[in-house]
C-alpha cells in the first residue's frame, strides 16, 4: 500500500487492514513486497530479538514468523514435536512444510530458549536449500567481553545478509536503517505510552494488531501506520467515541515469545482489564529508540544491545540486579494495579521466571494472577473468568 493511501485510512479501515495482515498466514504482504521488488529477498525471524536493521539494510524484508492461531490446522508440525513442547514451533514447522513460507528465503533463530534453538537445527534438516542461522546473542553484558563477541556475531550475520541478497550495502545504508528502526521504536513507544496513559484511547487489542502487523509490513509502511493510528486515536477521542470505563489497569507478563490469539487479548478487555503494559513482540522495544546514527553502525548496535536494561525471560539478570525490578518499575510507570501472568503452556523460560516475579511482586504488595494459553487457544471462558474475577477484585477491594 502506498504511504499516501495509509494516511487516508479511517480508524476502522486501518485496523481492518492491520488485522488482515497479521492474521494472514499465507504471508501475502511478503509476496506482494517481493513482486514489487523483483530479485529482493525476505528474511524470517522468530521471537524474541534480532537486529532487523541488518536485514533491512541489505535490501531485504524482515519478516516476523510468530506462528499462527487456531485457524491453522497443525498436522505436520505435531509430527515433529511431543505433546509437552510449546505450540509455536509446531505452527512454524506447519507453515514451512505446507509451503506458506516459500516466500521466505532465510530464517534467523534467536537464542530465546532450547526449543527455538533446536528448531534452528530442524530447519537446517527440513529446508537444506534455505539459509538458516542461529543468532546467539551474548548473556555477558560487559562491552569488552560480551560486546566483542556480539560484534563478531553481527559481523557474520551482516555478511550472510549481504551475500543472500547479493547486496553491496555500506555502513551508511546500515545507519539509515538504524534511523528508520529508531523511528519505528519511537512511534511504538508513543503508542505504548498512549495506551498506558489512556488505555480506553489506545486499546489493548488495537495495539496488539498494530504491533503484530509491524512484524510483517515493511518498516517504512509500519511507521506511517503507527503515526496514522496515533493521529486517529486522538481524533476519535476528541469526537467522544472513546470513553474511560471503570476497568482494572493490568500488566501482561510472560508472553514474550509465543503470541496469544487476538481473541485472548479481546477477552481480557471484555473481562474488565485495561492492559496498560505487556511483553508481546518485545522486539518493538529492544534497544530503545536512540541507537546512534553516526559512526560505525555495527558498533552502535552492539553498544545499544549491551546498554539495554529491559528484562526478558530469555535474558540473564546479571549479578547484583534483582529479578523483577524492571517489572515493578514498569508497573509503577504505567500506574498499573496488578499483573496478569500469561505464559504459553510448556514455555520453560516464562514459567520458570514466574515464581521469582511473583515473589518480587508479593514483597511490594502488588496483586497478580496467572493463566496459561497457547497460540491456538480457543476455549477462552476460563481465562475470561479468571481475568474478570481479578479485575473485579482490584476494583472492589483495591487488592486481589
Amino acid at each position, binding site marked *: 500500500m502506498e504511504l499516501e493511501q495509509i494516511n487516508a485510512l479511517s480508524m476502522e479501515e486501518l485496523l481492518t487492514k492491520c488485522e488482515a495482515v497479521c492474521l494472514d498466514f499465507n504471508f501475502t504482504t511478503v509476496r506482494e513486497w517481493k513482486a514489487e521488488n523483483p530479485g529482493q529477498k525476505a528474511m524470517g525471524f522468530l521471537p524474541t530479538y534480532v537486529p532487523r536493521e541488518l536485514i533491512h539494510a541489505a535490501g531485504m524484508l524482515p519478516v516476523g514468523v510468530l506462528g499462527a492461531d487456531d485457524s491453522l490446522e497443525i498436522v505436520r508440525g505435531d509430527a515433529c514435536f511431543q505433546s*509437552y513442547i510449546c505450540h509455536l514451533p509446531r505452527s512454524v514447522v506447519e507453515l514451512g512444510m505446507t509451503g506458506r513460507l516459500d516466500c521466505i528465503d532465510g530464517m534467523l533463530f534467536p537464542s530465546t*530458549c532450547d526449543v527455538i534453538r533446536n528448531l534452528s*537445527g530442524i530447519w*537446517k534438516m527440513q529446508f537444506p536449500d534455505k539459509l538458516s542461522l542461529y543468532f546467539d546473542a551474548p548473556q*555477558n553484558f560487559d562491552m569488552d567481553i560480551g560486546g566483542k563477541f556480539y560484534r563478531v556475531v553481527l559481523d557474520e550475520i551482516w555478511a550472510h545478509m549481504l551475500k543472500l541478497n547479493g547486496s553491496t550495502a555500506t555502513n551508511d545504508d546500515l545507519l539509515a536503517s538504524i534511523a528508520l528502526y529508531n523511528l519505528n521504536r519511537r512511534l511504538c513507544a508513543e503508542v505504548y505510552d498512549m495506551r498506558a496513559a489512556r488505555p480506553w484511547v489506545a486499546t489493548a487489542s488495537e495495539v496488539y494488531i498494530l504491533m503484530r502487523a509491524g512484524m510483517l509490513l515493511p518498516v517504512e509502511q509500519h511507521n506511517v501506520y503507527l503515526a496514522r493510528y496515533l493521529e486517529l486515536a486522538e481524533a476519535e477521542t476528541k469526537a467522544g467515541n472513546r470513553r474511560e470505563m471503570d476497568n482494572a489497569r493490568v500488566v501482561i507478563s510472560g508472553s514474550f515469545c509465543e503470541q496469544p490469539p487476538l481473541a485472548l487479548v479481546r477477552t481480557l478487555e471484555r473481562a474488565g482489564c485495561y492492559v496498560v503494559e505487556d511483553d508481546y513482540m518485545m522486539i518493538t522495544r529492544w534497544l530503545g529508540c536512540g541507537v546512534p546514527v553516526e559512526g560505525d553502525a555495527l558498533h552502535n548496535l552492539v553498544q545499544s544491545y549491551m546498554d539495554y536494561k529491559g528484562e526478558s525471560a530469555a535474558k540473564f539478570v546479571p549479578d547484583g540486579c534483582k529479578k523483577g525490578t524492571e517489572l515493578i518499575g514498569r508497573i509503577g510507570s504505567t500506574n498499573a494495579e496488578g499483573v496478569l501472568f500469561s505464559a504459553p503452556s510448556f514455555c520453560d523460560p516464562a514459567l520458570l521466571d*514466574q515464581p521469582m516475579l511473583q515473589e518480587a511482586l508479593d514483597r511490594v504488595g502488588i496483586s497478580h494472577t496467572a493463566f496459561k494459553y497457547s497460540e491456538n487457544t480457543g476455549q477462552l471462558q476460563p481465562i475470561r473468568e479468571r481475568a474478570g474475577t481479578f479485575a473485579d477484585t482490584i476494583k472492589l477491594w483495591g487488592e486481589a
Partner: protein
Amino acid sequence: MSQNLDVDAKPSIEKEESMFVQKKMIADHFDRLANAKESGKKVVYTFVPGNLTELMLSFDTLPVLPEINALQAGMRKMSGEYIAEAERHGHSEDVCTYVKCDIGMMLKGNIGPTGQKIPDPDLLLLSYTGCFTFLKWFELLRDRYPNCPVAMLHVPYQGEGEYTPEMVKYVVEQLKREIIPKFEKVTGTSFNEGALKELLANSALAENDLVWVLEAAKNPVSPIDSYFGGVYYIGPIFTSFRGTPGAVAYYKQLRKEVEARVEAGEGPITPDGPMGEQKFRIVVEGPPNWTSFREFWKMFYDEGAVVVASTYTKVGGVYERGFRHDPEKPLETLAEYCLGCYTNLNLPDRVGMIANYVKEYNADGFLMNSVKSCNSFSSGQLVMLREVEKRTGRAGAFIETDLVDPRYFSASNVKNRLESYFQMLAQKRAAAQAEVMA
C-alpha cells in the same frame, strides 16, 4: 550419570572393584561437603555440562551438582515429594523436573543422599552450556541464596555445527575476567595455573581410559551396557572428580575390569548378575529415567538387549572425537571442552553422531527416550528419529518418560513398546536371513 550406585542393595549382585572405588569416592566427597564449614572449604554449585571441575579443584573448592542431587533423589524415590513441594510453592507442572526436585529438596532441608545436609553455596557457578534452563535455575537459586555471588559463563551454541576461534576467545575472556576473579574473591586465594595444569593432565589420562571403555562396546559381545552401565562409568569424570588422581585410578581399574570381560567374551554385569545372550545391540538417545532406573534397565536385559552406545554419556564431554583436556593451554582447553558438550551440538550434528554410532557399533536399531523435562534433549527428537532411520536404514523406537518425575514413567506402556520394538527387530532379522538363504 549417577553417584548413587548402591552396590549393597541386592546381595546377589556381582561386585567389581571399581564399584567400591566409586562408592568410596562419593562418600568421601559428601563427608567433605558435610564438614565444609569446619574445614573452611568453599562450596561451589554448578552443572554437569560444561563443568569446570579442574578450575574449581585448583581453588580447593568443593563442587555440588544440583542435577546430580535431583537424579539421586529420583533413584532414592524422593523426587516425587520434592517436586510436589516445589509445585506447592508456585512452580509450574510444565517445567523441568530437575529444577523442581532441586528446589523442593532445598525447601525440605537440602539433605543429600548420605543423609547429611548439603551446605549452602559460597559461589553459584552458572556454566550456561547446552541448556537454557540452567540460566533460569541459577536465577532461582540466587533468589534462594541472595547473598551468594553468581559467576556466569555463557558458552555459545554450535548453531552452525562447529565452534569457532571467536567462541573460544569469548569463553576464555569470561574465564579470565569474570569467573577466575570471582573464585579469587570467594576463596581469598590467587589463581594457580600450575595446579590447574596438573589437574588437566590427570583429566586427559582418565579421558583416555573412559573412551577405551565406551568403545569396548564395539566388540561382538559388548562387555558393557553403554547407557544403564554407562551412567555409572561417567559418574566420576562428569562430576566432582575429573582431574583428581582418584579419578585416574578409578578409570584404570574400570578399564582393567572391562578388558578382562572382553578377553573372556563376557557381557556387562546387570543388577541381576552377568547379562546372558545379547540378542539386540541398541543405540540410545536421551537421558534415562531415574525414578524406575532398574525396572527400565531390566526391560532391556530381559529381552537380551544391550545398549552399545548412548548420547547421554556425552553430556559432560564428547571425548570420542579426540578432544582431551590439554594442560598446555589450560583456559582454552576448558573453553573447548564446554563448547563441545553433547547438548551444545546442533541437531544435524547430533543426528550424525547417532547415525555413526549405529554403523560403528553395528547396532540393530536405536531408541529415543524422550524425557518430558528436558527440552534441550527432547525438542526435535521426532525429526531426528526419522533422519537417523533414513541415513542408517535401521528402525528406531520412541518412548516417553521423564527424568525424576515418577508421574511420567508408565512402566507398562514403556515395556509394551520396547517388547514390540524388539519383536519387530527379530522379525526383520529373520526376514533378512531368509532372503540371504533364498
